């Protein structure tokens, strides 16, 4: 069950997604503090709240956002170009989710997990053009959040 969130956590989540959907870039806590008018400490507490609710994943150490699913704050092998907005997905599931959440056409570049051969996928008019390729999930569904970075 999803725990209830403080108004600041809800606002921080809104700002994170407003920015990442427009630019492909996840904002840091300083930018979030500037936009929401909260202190950086308050923003960090809100981010921790969102992580505990499994709505974001934070970077260990810095406490900055690592994942605002489906987006990644750091480079990954799942590169999405959605009409000129470039973003990284956390995995193939998330890379496909980016054009869906953005409501844009996109080109997704990744490599075969085994041999690294470039695989390019095209999303056009809400459809995925390619059908070739197969996806492997290494972690059973009920354990996805035990180590979500590995998952």
């Amino acid at each position, binding site marked *: *069950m*999803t725990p209830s969130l403080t108004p600041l956590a*809800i*606002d921080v*989540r*809104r*700002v*994170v*997604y*407003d920015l990442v*959907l427009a630019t492909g870039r996840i904002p840091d806590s300083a930018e979030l503090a500037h936009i929401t008018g909260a202190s950086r400490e308050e923003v960090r507490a809100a981010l921790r709240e969102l992580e505990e*609710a*499994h*709505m974001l994943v934070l970077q260990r150490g810095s406490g900055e956002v690592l994942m*605002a*699913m*489906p987006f990644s704050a750091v480079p990954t092998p799942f590169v999405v170009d959605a009409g000129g907005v470039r973003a990284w997905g956390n*995995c*193939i*599931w*998330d890379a*496909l*989710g*980016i054009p*869906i*959440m953005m409501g844009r056409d996109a080109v997704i570049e*990744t490599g*075969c*997990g*085994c*041999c690294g*051969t470039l*695989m390019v*996928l095209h999303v056009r008019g809400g459809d*995925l053009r*390619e*059908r*070739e*390729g*197969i*996806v*492997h*999930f*290494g*972690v*059973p*569904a*009920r354990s996805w959040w035990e180590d979500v970075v590995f*998952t």
Partner: protein
Amino acid sequence: MLLFRSEEHIDRWCEQWRRPRGGVMTLEQQWGMAIGWYAENRGDPSWRRKTVEEAEALFAELGLTGEFWRLR
């Protein structure tokens, strides 16, 4: 979750990394899962995570059944 060129490439990857073979789905199933999971703007104040029942129903709708896809 990684994309592979073929089942054979998944087997090779599992062998190379000494990982057991997990759950496998077609790219089409993965696309359906992405639509089911990410169609909503998560910045919307009213957004909430799917319940376990809703997530399992989505998996079942996509033909993802069995122990690997159970959430409880």
